[in-house]
């Protein structure tokens, strides 16, 4: 079967009242973006309160449905066969052919659902349902009609053309990226943070990401791994600006000045501070982390409180109540797991103490951070000034230089 068109079904957008067009326009934009790398020409339009992807040339069905199934906001993708508006007799034959071809040898139950926008058509919807059902039964004798709980719903729409569709390929749900503003993801290279980014992006939020690099303690390959993870997330979100921040100097300074069991907490507080500064610069409305309660010493409730205290922007932690296994399941589903488990050290684990504090006290930490007063501000400033910005999308990446940064 060659489908000339895809009908995009969206769920939540439908209930957004007066803002509806904002969501629809965002979805159209995201669909166009997702189809860009695909072979073929497509037109995406909003008509009759829905979105159609019209295929203007030959295309690869798998590639296109795969690309569409990554677009947040899509609930389902229906491949549609389109024919010219014809007289009832020919319509019956076409419908029967369609079902025969799409469900060869099927023994399923079905129901026909007709929508007649063209009220001048000689038969009304009820009559059409009955006649079409009849024609299909004749062509596919093993199928049977069930009007209450059909296994297959055969949709026939009569407009200026006739549209047949019966299958729905599931989309990821959620809201189109961009409608919810932008947030800054702290991307570490582990399993959790890409999943956290995915989950927030699914609610319509565009992502920027920040990675804390610590050469020579972390390798060039660790950065490459983070870029690869960003690319895998970008499949769903569209382009991500990745801020590659050199954290070595700050990390070594903390190591020299502060108690070692508090190293991780203090380090993370500085990461949050830098992330927030970058976020404000980039117009992000919040920070995203992959933290989940109790996973490691720095993720106890006490530690999370002490870490989060430095931020004035909201910190979103979508995995906060997830078990590791649950995170891994999502990570595998979205395709980031394999890259996540490549064995490159990230900067959080380099100097990790044997017994880091699990119940840090805010006042103690703040007091110990005073030991850093002399140089830390200029170091933070330098880290942000030397931000190596990398624009990542699903097809590749490039470093952003000079003028472009602003």
């Amino acid at each position, binding site marked *: 079967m060659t489908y000339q068109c895809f009908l995009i079904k969206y769920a939540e957008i439908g209930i957004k009242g007066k803002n509806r067009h904002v969501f629809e326009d965002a979805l159209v934009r995201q669909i166009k973006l997702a189809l860009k790398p695909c072979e073929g020409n497509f037109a995406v339009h909003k008509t009759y309160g829905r979105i159609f992807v019209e295929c203007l040339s030959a295309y690869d069905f798998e590639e296109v449905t795969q690309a569409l199934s990554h677009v947040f906001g899509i609930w389902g993708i229906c491949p549609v066969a389109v024919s010219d508006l014809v007289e009832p007799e020919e319509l019956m034959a076409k419908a029967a052919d369609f079902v025969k071809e799409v469900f060869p040898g099927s023994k399923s139950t079905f129901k026909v659902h007709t929508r007649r926008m063209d009220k001048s058509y000689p038969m009304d919807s009820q009559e059409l349902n009955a006649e079409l059902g009849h024609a299909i039964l004749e062509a596919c004798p093993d199928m049977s009609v069930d009007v209450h709980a059909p296994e297959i719903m055969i949709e026939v729409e009569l407009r200026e053309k006739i549209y047949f569709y019966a299958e729905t390929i599931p989309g990821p749900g959620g809201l189109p990226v961009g409608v919810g503003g932008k947030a800054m993801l702290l991307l570490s290279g582990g399993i959790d943070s890409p999943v956290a980014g995915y989950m927030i992006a699914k609610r319509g939020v565009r992502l920027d990401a920040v990675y804390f690099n610590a*050469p*020579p*303690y972390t*390798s060039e*390959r660790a950065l490459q791994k983070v870029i690869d993870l960003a690319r895998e997330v970008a499949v769903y979100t569209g382009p991500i600006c990745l801020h590659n921040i050199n954290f070595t100097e700050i990390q*070594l300074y903390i190591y020299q000045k502060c108690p070692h069991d508090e190293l991780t907490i203090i380090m993370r507080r500085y990461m949050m501070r830098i992330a927030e500064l970058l976020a404000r610069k980039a117009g992000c409305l919040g920070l995203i982390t992959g933290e989940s309660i109790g996973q490691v010493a720095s993720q106890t409730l006490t530690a999370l409180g002490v870490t989060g205290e430095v931020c004035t922007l909201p910190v979103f932690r979508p995995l906060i109540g997830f078990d590791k296994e649950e995170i891994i399941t999502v990570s595998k589903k979205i395709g980031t797991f394999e890259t996540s488990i490549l*064995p*490159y050290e990230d900067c959080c684990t380099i*100097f*990790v103490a044997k017994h880091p504090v699990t119940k840090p006290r805010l006042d103690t930490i703040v007091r110990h951070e005073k030991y850093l007063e002399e140089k830390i501000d200029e170091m933070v400033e330098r880290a942000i000034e030397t931000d190596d910005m990398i624009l990542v999308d699903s097809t590749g990446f490039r470093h952003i230089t000079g003028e472009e940064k602003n």
Partner: protein
Amino acid sequence: MREAYLDNSATTRCFPEVAGLMHRISLEEYGNPSSMHHRGVEAEKIIREAAGTLAGILKVPEKTLLFTSCGTESDNIAIIGGALASQRKGKHLITTAIEHPAVLESMRFLEKIGFSVTYLPVDRYGTVSPQDVEDAMRPDTILVSVMHTNNEIGSVQPIAEIGERIKGKNRSALFHVDAVQGFGKAQILPRKMHVDLLSASAHKIHGPKGVGLLYCGEKVRLQNLIFGGGQQGGMRSGTENVPGIAGMAEAAKALYENLDEDREKLFAMREYLAGAVQDIPGIYVNGQPGREGAPHILSLTVPGVRAEVLLHALEEKGVYVSSGSACSTNRPHISDTLTAIGMKREDLDSTIRLSFSVMNTMEDAQQAAYALHELVPFLRQFTRH
């Protein structure tokens, strides 16, 4: 920044004349050596000439040489092909604990399909005792594989003596030598050393990547592992890499013309660097003392500093080295060789390898020495607790 590439045991830079020759052959002598016509004959001639050059270096007949895609493939064909062809005589093999994964993993595969393997220990310098080899020989021993030069610490094995002991016990047991690190750095004469099978690789000797060599003695029977058009006497099907093979021969010729002089130069750089870092507290050199070992490999243990961190820090100073063996890529794994020489657990992760080539100069060794002096004390301030 000035670059001091001291990772020549991982791979070398191509000699310009080798690259030039390959460039010319790729453009001009593009025939398939199996073709009947003139172009084919010309290409075949190039391979014959290359084989002649290499045969001259090894002092073996030209037709005993097989061209493969890499040292690993040569090791695989020699060990697996050799074992399969001899399995009616027995199913026992002997090797050492410090072999390259190309050998060890081939052995492990054979174990899975019913062969048994003895892994010989080495002393603290990384040397195998010929007596141990002899003692391990059994009536059903069909193949012994011992490397010429170890890739991690540069220890050189007494190949000729081991060969003599093997043949003294059992004339028909095959002796394979992985000479990937030794070829181009030492005089290697398989026939004099009682070696039946010998592997070498082009990219370790300033030739191209993608070409390996296997010497296979005239009376040695091997089961071929690659099936196809029957090239190279059916032992290794597949169209020959004409420019690559010519490149390997050209590189080997250049090296062996100056062997003694080059060895002297390599030793001098290695000795300079080993001496120059001696005053860094706690640092020590692995492998054989004096000039017993390979001239080009210097294995240094820097207690209290993680090898990977030191490697990246050196990289920031333009000095390229490797941690453990680069052939095991980026998987943090415990080195078989370092474990086998009895290195302390806490030092296993603090060992780097610096490997020289004739393209290095004394300035490179000096640059590495300065960098180590500067970096080690700095990095030692920051350790895990």
